[in-house]
């Protein structure tokens, strides 16, 4: 009897099959994942969760008898009152206890997706525009790669092939007697011994030879410490791409809670997405009224300010922060601005100039999200009648720089995700759709 401890074997043997299942049901699972977004708050977007898809699509059919019709018999335990010949009312559905197939009646297939699977499906077919700058940061060396062989190392890194190759060439070079040679001499001795007559001389000679060979064999070992070769690994610095995301938001009195909530959802999605693409993602929150300041997340979303609206102050602040901490040479810069569109008319020229001349050249991507009231009376009347906001009109002039600058309007939380997807849909797909 053997006892084998398999506990340390790598787990996740079913991982491949699990992935294949997800691939097969991808469309459905993706649908389910996106649907589930409605029920999730932006905060627990990243946790694992149960999803449900129609069972029919992943059903494995087989020839089996139907569960209704025909004549059936059932043997059951636990009779209390029935006598032979008794008649029992048929249960309404016609389904008898023993008749149903377990689980088959259930129309839905439920299972748990891990966090990674969830995110993958959720953000699938999105890509970052202008994923250009990658900076090799010093100090953060990580990862090992194989780098030749060495004569010392841990036993687990022993390279059998190399070692044996060395051993063989050494054995050949030093003429280590081979097993066959010895066997041949032994056979010869045996043959001579078996022969009639006196061959003692020859036998003695052979024995001597055999002894010599054996001594030599002992001296020249099969595998010698000098043969040993170990695989050598050396740490390699890996390029680490990093990104900073500037969240700019107008927090003046005209921004309602609803608008802030919309903006927050957009930022959360963007952050999630950036985190998946970059190892390091830093977020800078800049809020502004008629003056701008850098704040923490809590303050950014939840504290109220009063004052006028000067968008250029936020842009200035951002440029300053960028200069202080995030050199465009080292960082991929993403800007997401949310506003209700108000701006002092006098500020327009400055805003455009800052955006077009100072920010656009260094930023990877700038998204302007104009958030509106949930029930916008103008909205229902259609586009042409709607008066474009000040900021919208001014930004309109710089729109279209190679897709680096985009602006969208959002009124309801259900629009956030579609807009987000639209912005980051894979280029190839988007282009294809545009052409057709």
């Amino acid at each position, binding site marked *: 009897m053997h006892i*084998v401890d398999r506990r340390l*074997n790598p787990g996740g043997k079913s991982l491949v*099959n699990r992935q294949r299942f997800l691939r*097969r049901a991808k469309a459905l699972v993706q649908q389910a994942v996106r649907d589930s977004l409605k029920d999730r708050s932006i905060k627990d977007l990243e946790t694992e969760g149960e999803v449900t898809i129609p069972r029919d699509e992943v059903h494995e059919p087989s*020839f089996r*008898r*139907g569960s209704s019709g025909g004549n059936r018999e059932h043997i059951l335990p*636990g009779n209390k009152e029935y006598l032979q010949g008794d008649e029992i009312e048929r249960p309404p559905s016609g389904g008898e206890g023993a008749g149903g197939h377990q689980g088959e009646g259930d129309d839905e297939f439920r299972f748990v997706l891990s966090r990674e699977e969830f995110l993958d499906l959720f953000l699938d077919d999105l890509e970052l525009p202008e994923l250009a700058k990658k900076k090799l940061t010093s100090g953060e060396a990580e990862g090992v790669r194989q780098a030749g062989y060495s004569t010392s190392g841990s036993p687990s890194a022993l390279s059998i092939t190399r070692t044996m190759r060395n051993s063989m060439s050494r054995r050949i070079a030093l003429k280590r007697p081979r097993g066959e040679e010895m066997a041949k001499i032994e056979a010869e001795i045996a043959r001579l011994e078996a022969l009639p007559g006196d061959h003692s001389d020859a036998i003695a000679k052979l024995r001597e030879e055999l002894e010599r060979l054996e001594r030599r064999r002992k001296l020249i070992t099969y595998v010698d410490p000098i043969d040993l070769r170990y695989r050598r690994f050396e740490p390699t610095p890996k390029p680490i791409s990093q990104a900073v995301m500037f969240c700019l938001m107008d927090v003046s009195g005209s921004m309602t809670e609803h608008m802030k909530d919309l903006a927050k959802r957009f930022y959360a999605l963007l952050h999630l997405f950036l985190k998946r693409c970059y190892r390091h993602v830093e977020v800078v929150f800049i809020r502004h009224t008629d003056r701008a300041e850098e704040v923490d997340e809590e303050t950014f979303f939840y504290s109220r300010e009063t004052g006028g609206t000067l968008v250029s102050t936020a842009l200035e602040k951002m440029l300053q922060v960028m200069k202080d901490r995030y050199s465009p040479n080292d960082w991929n810069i993403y800007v997401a601005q949310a506003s209700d569109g108000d701006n002092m008319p006098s500020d327009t020229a400055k805003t455009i100039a800052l955006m077009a001349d100072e920010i656009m050249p260094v930023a990877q991507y700038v998204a302007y999200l104009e958030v509106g009231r949930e029930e916008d009376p103008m909205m229902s009347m259609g586009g042409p009648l709607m008066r474009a906001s000040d900021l919208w009109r001014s930004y309109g002039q710089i729109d279209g720089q190679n897709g680096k600058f985009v602006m969208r309007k959002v009124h309801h939380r259900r629009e956030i995700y579609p807009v987000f997807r639209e912005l980051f849909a894979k280029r190839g797909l988007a282009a294809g759709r545009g052409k057709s």
Partner: protein
Amino acid sequence: MSKLATKPLYEGSDWNFDTIQRIYDTVEQVAHEELDLNTYPNQIEVITAEQMLDAYSSTGMPLLYNHWSFGKQFLTNELMYRKGQRGLAYELVINSDPCINYIMEENSATMQTLVLAHAAFGHNHFFKNNYLFQQWTDAEGILDYLEFAKRYIAQCEERYGQIQVERLLDAAHALNRQGVHRYPRGQARDLKAEMARENERHAQRERDYNDLYRTLPKGKAKAADAAVSERAAALGLPQENVLYFLEKSAPRLAPWQREILRITRVLAQYFYPQGQTKVMNEGAACYVHYRIMTALHERGHITEGSFLEFLTSHTNVVSQPMFDSGRYGGLNPYWVGYNMMQDIAQVCTAPTEEDRLWFPDIAGGGDVEGTLKHIWANYRDESFVSQFLSPRLMRHWRLFKLDDHEKVDHIKVDAIHDERGYRELRRGLARQYDISWQEPDIQIVDVDLAGDRTLMLEHHVTNGVLLAEKDAGRVVQHLADLWGYEVVLAEIEPEGGSTLKEHKARPRASGPRLAEG
């Protein structure tokens, strides 16, 4: 009774590998000396709960090719396990030589003892000795075969693409149940034997020759009939092993596709005996573990506490909710099997008058182990129940039989546990375990070779129960994809031969065909 052990094998619930070794040795001693079991050598593998979940979803096999359906299985089990709807098995045993036993690290020492007695000796003995397993499975070769299958299918995926292979496996899995030989095939005769047979036949014809036969009026010989029977002989029809037929005769499959069909077929055949011996297999294993644990307790190898722990879990395993308890989900094979084994032991040692009447061969024979071992070796569930279910058990279980006829408004109580009902109950229960009664009888009957190569199948309907329609349609579609031409499945009423329903399908363009050109 042998002398009491001075010290129990273990105290408390902790164990280590030495404990397992000690437990195994003691259990082995009891199993071989007292029960005289004949087992394959064992290999015990300790695994974690996560690994047990993995093993679950690959039908318990240690290695299996990749397919999405196993992933689906895994996700189902995982959810149930996480929600606590289902616990995990304490062990998993594989019919191989050496016999592989997986035991979970979470088990207490008592559970490990129980599991070793149950699986490493109970199931192991059954696997090695039962005629169905001997006839249909190759315990020595299975692990190597699985490895070959996994590698082969992986290679096919590399060469022909995952999607192609997946489609093929989908189709093959759908036909899995129609992929077993139910009867051992006759050996192909060599030329010499064939000649001898022909000569004998000829001689017989000469002996039987009577000139008067010449005068009998002859009907017109049907040329068509002759053609049909010739074709049937050439193709080996009728054939109930659909996968086998496709592997050998489907015109448009590539060699690798045939090999994959063969792999699924071989695995289906390997599992075929297990479906037919569930009650006996579990019954035997439960009986063995009960005997061994009791013996260990009597000899002082295990403490009172752990014996009590064993009894609790044993009782849970062999429990059966009654039909009206709300928890009824069919008969528990552990319960049926274990109770029948105990009952047979009683018939052997302390028979009643009734037992003598019903089981004259074994009643009062005294040789419990010998009788049981004979039964374990030579029966399957259906024959076991129809031979050995005693009136005492039927009374004890308060069995009754319901007849549910489509055309009658009420369900009729056909038999209860009384003198008039015993045989009917026993016959009915045996049928529930009869695979040829439970599985639909589907056969390939003909191929339209002269016409459009339509493959014709028949389902011989029993008791008017048709195939589940949606599923049948899908499987026929898979079948058509494999066959490469149209497929027709007719559901035939056995009395009168009228067709009740027909399922037809044409191959999909994107089906698993690949072998064009």
